[in-house]
């Protein structure tokens, strides 16, 4: 991906993630005073499920670009930097997929 597209994608994902994350974190902190049944009930709303899944997919795109920048600044050995980037890319695909599976089939 070229740097301009990366720069734009970083901003666009930030604008999508900010309200989604604020809403979802607020919901979870509210649920922390309630019991299991109420937490499960929260996720019976399909819109909430879709937004939570979207949050994970979009924020991990944002995280991947951000961590790439940080690795570029602080890791000076190319091999280690490449490994760090590959690990980030794999995690940023696997974690949202697990969330997708959990919310679609388990919760």
């Amino acid at each position, binding site marked *: 991906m070229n740097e301009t597209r990366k720069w734009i994608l970083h901003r666009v994902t930030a604008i999508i993630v900010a309200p989604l*994350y604020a809403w979802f*974190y*607020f919901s979870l902190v509210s649920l922390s005073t309630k019991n*299991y049944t109420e937490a499960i009930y929260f996720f019976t709303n399909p819109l909430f499920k879709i937004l*939570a899944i979207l949050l994970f997919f979009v924020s991990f795109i944002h995280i991947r670009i*951000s*961590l790439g920048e*940080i690795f570029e600044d602080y890791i000076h050995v190319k091999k280690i930097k490449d490994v760090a980037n590959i690990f980030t890319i794999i995690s940023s695909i696997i974690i949202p997929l*697990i969330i997708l599976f959990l919310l679609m089939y388990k*919760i």
Partner: protein
Amino acid sequence: MNDSKNPISPHLQIYRWHVSSLLSITHRISGIINLFALILIFFWLLILSFGESNYETFLLMINSFFGKFILIGFTWSMCFQILSGIRHLVWDLGYGFEIKTANISGVIVIIFSLVLTTTFWIFARGFI
């Protein structure tokens, strides 16, 4: 001492901190903290899928003193990064680069991140 006139990178122990540099590094650090917050949320949902008894144990953990400390810390980190992010987006649009404006916006970000964190907790949990 090195006689060379070459510039050296900021020496953290004698480096004079400015609002701008403080906010710059804090923006990065809060981003990393938010990554940990998202990982906690991941485990939150994972444990929720494990059933009632596991989830009740998890609730006990996050409602302990240490748990609340972490959740409040994550709240501040989120508020700070959103506000600081808006500041960065305004810069991307080409506004607010004057030193005075940048300093004022920086102080506003710090103050409002604390105000928002408090407001967030009062509304989400009804105090602590």
